[in-house]
């Protein structure tokens, strides 16, 4: 099994896990990163009163609440949270939000 090292944004935690990206089906996503965000994420993370925005405001503070305004998102972290879930956010299965879609989503959110 291949492994890859992930490091948190603040550098205070690192760990080893299997690499989702390395096992992704060799298919290109048929959606752009923005389209994936709009389809899967925007209901919770697209507005100031969405449940995901509320959670991030509570845990990270007002300046980190809206995903689209974040400039410190790491693609590995995005992959991890999408697949594992985080607090009230449930995980997204690869049958629906495929690895290919996750790749373009992670790239989109990390490059804003």
């Amino acid at each position, binding site marked *: 099994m291949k492994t890859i090292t992930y490091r948190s944004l603040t550098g205070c935690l690192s760990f080893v896990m299997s690499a989702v990206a390395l096992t992704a089906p060799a298919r290109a996503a048929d959606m752009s990163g923005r389209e994936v965000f709009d389809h899967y994420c925007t209901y919770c993370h697209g507005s100031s009163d969405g449940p995901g925005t509320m959670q991030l405001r509570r*845990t990270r503070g007002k300046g980190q609440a809206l995903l689209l305004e974040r400039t410190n998102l790491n693609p590995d972290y995005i992959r991890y949270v999408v697949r594992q879930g985080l607090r009230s*956010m*449930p995980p997204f299965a690869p049958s629906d939000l495929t690895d290919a879609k996750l790749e373009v989503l992670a790239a989109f959110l990390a490059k804003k």
Partner: protein
Amino acid sequence: MLFPTGLMPSPVALATTPRPLPPGVSAEQMADALERFRRIVGDAWVFSGEKVASYYDPYTIPNDPQRYKAHAAIAPASTEQVQEIVKIANEFRVPLWTVSRGKNFAYGGAAPVLSGSVVLDLSRMNRILEVNEKFGYALVEPGVSYFDLYQYIQERGLKLWLDVPDPGWGSVVGNALDHGVGYTPYGDHFGMQCGMEVVLANGEVVRTGMGAMPGNNTWQLFKYGFGPYVDGIFSQSNFGIVTKMGIWLMPEPAGYRPYLITFPREEDIEQVVEIVRPLRLNNVIQNAATIRSLVLDAALFTTKSRYYSGAGPIPPSVARQIMADQDIGMWNFCGALYGPPPIMDALWTVIRDSFAAIPGVKFYFPEDRKRRPDILIHRADTMRGIPKLTEFGFLNWNGGGGHVGFSPVSPTTGKDAIKQFHMVSDRVRESGFDYMGLMAIGFRELHHVTVIVYDQTNPQERQKLHELFGLLVGEAAAEGYGEYRTHIHYMDRIADTYSWNDHALMKMHQAIKDALDPNGILSPGKSGIWPRHLREGTKA
């Protein structure tokens, strides 16, 4: 810190923890079965290793990390592939835990009752096969979400409304099969189901109702066909895999007017429900309306810490402050009027005059609500079938993220409502949680759904929740109240309360199970129904 301490299991552990195997299946047999599954669906659609984590219960209750853990997941794209999969599963005796989209959160998500099961994830079977505007129905596969169907209807400008549960990402089929409810006049989702296609455990495909007749053109129009009506045995069950289902859709009404009626005291629920019953029975209240508690509504848009930093549930003084700030009541009745304006005007006159007898009652239409976000503005969307995820906001109330629903059914009487309210809210508050409840009004019954929001990262809190839930189930059953739906952790417990005549109903379920699925490969343990070889001994 990016990952707060204790927030989630170690990724190292997730990657290296051995996946559980089902009873009687060796690692080699499972590997062979997965290889055969790959030949059916392709390598990309069999998920094992760390990818199985997406199929864990995101709001786990037990502290035993081996409970409710899938070994793998498989995502077929067609009924034919499902047929082939069940044949392989029979050959290797591999249990399949079927989920439509796996979004049944608060009830276990995609996680199986029996650890080691392979999740049969039908998300890829997401075709909308027909939407018929003339007759008002859709024929869909299990992977179709409410968002999908809503978008389809909107893009084509069809004059049809959905009925949606609170989370819009769930499966239209899955929600109906689990007896989910919504908020329009079509709120009883299984009641609006018409015609199924089912893959049986032996791989045979059955169409129910009129669908059993070749060339018939009323499969989605008439439920019963000829002979025994069997659709019900495929709901909340493990007797087959539903691969297509008809669902009736509401014709767009000539008018729509949502309203909110608030009541200032907890004790008002008795009088409110007494008033609701005749109005609902006579269709003056037209929709599956809900009476929601203060904290449940407030929690959609605010957090507990804004009002209270003490331990345990909020005290009455804080509740009054929240009522004033959020401009809501201790109970909030959200309903809607549907139809031509003169009809809506007449119905509203009766409704308003009926509730006016309650001291302190307030009546609102959307234009009366100035605060944003606002509960009526939000519910106005839901009561016209617009799918959303706004209700997930209540999970932020105390920050813990976990939630589970306790959902007993009672008659629509004031006496039962106030009794239910005290039975549940007293215990919930004694355990340190806030009461977040709603009473969903059917024609003759009310579903008293209490959401218990807990800190899923705290083992002690999960244990406290578990003890509370057991107490609630026992006390409800002792008074004749049964739950209509439950989390996978409590399926055996709830099934055991339906015990009339020495568990005669469960014995019948088991007889059907043994006849249709003799190898017990379909969703063992669903709704407390176990195959013969697992009825004694290890169940999870």
